[in-house]
């Protein structure tokens, strides 16, 4: 159906307004990062920095450990997501395909663990990590993040597996696959958009964490993640907001790039998983 002119104008106005609301904080981060520290509270504000301070970025990479922090964050996020995905794929697939009397209860139990606030988990997790001698180690964060990612990822993947017809794996079994073979050769490739969406969710959740990192890693500067590192830029009396914004922009960049490349899968994964 062809849109009328006024409908098109309304539609584009709504899209532009939504984009402006979403993109303004990122734009303002860029602007702030390029201004001298004192200009943050300038009135009227500079929407385009008159003299862009590119030196801030040079200082960020030379004078701080941001590259190491980002590497730590990346390591934690990738490993936590990988471990979580293995567990969530198997759990989600089992919940979707092998129905027993207790399946529903097990599923709800897993979902319930997602409903617990992270602050509630911190104390028992702290005890566990200390007993295991993992305090200050990146592995403490990996395991803590996995506990947060697995429940939701399991449910996301269960929804996705539910939408994949049973007949596909039955056909694969008749064609010569074992049940494991059917899962790996047919079901997982078919569920690739769902896997991508879920992995991205896990990666973002891990990358964006501050609470667990602050609790488990604060005493070991070598293990700091990017969010923990950026928090140290805040001084007692003075904060270089241009440096904070430049670092924050760097921290947000991997996620933005990941969304850019995976958005097709992400949208497909979300809708297909929710379809049934």
């Amino acid at each position, binding site marked *: 159906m062809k849109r009328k002119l006024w409908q098109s104008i309304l539609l584009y106005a709504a899209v532009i307004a939504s984009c402006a609301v979403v993109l303004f904080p990122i734009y303002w981060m860029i602007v702030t990062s390029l201004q001298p520290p004192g200009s943050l509270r300038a009135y009227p504000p500079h929407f385009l920095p008159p003299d862009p301070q590119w030196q801030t970025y040079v200082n960020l990479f030379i004078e701080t450990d941001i590259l190491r922090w980002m590497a730590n964050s990346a390591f934690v996020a990738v490993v936590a997501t990988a471990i979580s995905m293995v567990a969530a794929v198997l759990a989600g697939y089992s919940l979707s395909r092998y129905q027993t009397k207790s399946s529903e209860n097990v599923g709800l139990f897993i979902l319930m663990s997602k409903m617990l606030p992270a602050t509630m988990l911190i104390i028992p997790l702290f005890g566990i990590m200390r007993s295991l001698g993992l305090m200050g180690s990146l592995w403490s964060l990996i395991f803590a993040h996995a506990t947060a990612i697995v429940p939701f990822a399991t449910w996301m993947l269960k929804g996705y597996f539910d939408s994949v*017809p049973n*007949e*596909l794996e*039955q*056909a*694969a*079994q*008749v*064609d*010569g*696959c*074992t049940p494991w*073979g059917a899962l790996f050769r*047919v079901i997982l*490739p*078919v569920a*690739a958009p769902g896997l991508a969406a879920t992995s991205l969710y896990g990666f973002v959740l891990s990358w964006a964490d501050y609470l667990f990192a602050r609790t488990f890693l604060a005493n070991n500067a070598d293990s700091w993640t990017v969010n923990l590192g950026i928090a140290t830029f805040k001084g007692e009396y003075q904060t270089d907001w241009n440096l904070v914004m430049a670092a924050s922009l760097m921290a947000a960049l991997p996620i933005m790039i990941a969304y850019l490349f995976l958005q097709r899968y992400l949208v497909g994964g979300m809708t297909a998983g929710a379809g049934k």
Partner: protein
Amino acid sequence: MAEIQIQNLNKRYGGFNALQDMSLDVKDGEFIVFVGPSGCGKSTALKILAGLEAATTGNIIIGGEDVTELAPAKRDIAMVFQNYALYPHLTVRQNIGFGLMMRGADKKEINQRVERAAQALEISDLLERRPKALSGGQRQRVALGRAIVREPRVFLMDEPLSNLDAALRVQMRAEITALQRRIGVTTIYVTHDQTEAMTMADRIVIMRKGVVQQIGSPDELFNRPANMFVAGFIGSPAMNFLRGEVRRDDGGLFIDAGGLRLPVADAAVPFVGKMVICGIRPESLELARGDGSALEITPTLVESLGTEAYVHFRLPEQQVKTAVAGEHEHPPLGNGTLIARLYDVGTSFSGGTIRLGLKPQASVHLFDPATEQAIR
């Protein structure tokens, strides 16, 4: 190619009997159709044959080998699914060759056999496409290709035509039958459509609520139904059932069904003086000639199909409420109609009473009202 023996197969889900004591011997190269309404156990039986479900009790023997406990992959069968179950992430070529690849065939052999199968099904130009770029009919051919390429001992087909439109269904029906006759692979085909069963099968297994009702050739089932369910299920429009009393006079045994005198065989002797149910096919009725015995009816609806007309009528005193079974089985209807299939009667009925008689050579099927079994 192989013969199949199904021995006392049972499947229970909790307290529900999905399949009860099913036994069947299928000859090598035979085309068997399992037919019945939804929930009759036909798909369950097929899945047990494929190894996708485990039987509660019973045995399956394919080519002399007991496969009851074997995984689907080890039964050397191929299956075509109702929704085709094509792998969406693979091309048509990879879909068809998947089974061969899983069995370790080399690439050259896979390609040769895939192309041969594609040629036979006229889908050679679709080999590099993915399933989502195919029409329903093309997907159906790819699913068939995936089955035939492996040259299995047995084909299993689970309602493979039910997702196609009516015209394509007729075409694919003929193609599958011709393909099976040409290849000669033992085939078990599941459908709820009695027309498919009648046109495709060497023998039909008609099922209801997990129990086999009758096994026989299409002609046998049509002409000698074992019970009222089979009689009502096979044939379109469905058989009419009328109540009538068995009587004897100088002319011998007959049934009086609402004024219509129906000749009956000696098998009805034990029922003299009792009510029985008479099954009369719509095509066995005609406009009565002369003033012999006839049903006097007032048509409630006349459906003209050009060369023939379906005349609907009611006989509240005589007609028997029967379950209507097609894809689903519906409980007996109080307001169901009887149908006469009349030829060369034109399209005009005045709306008044007409007289229907039985064609000279037409047979009447008798059923015991208590058991619904045929009286023979």
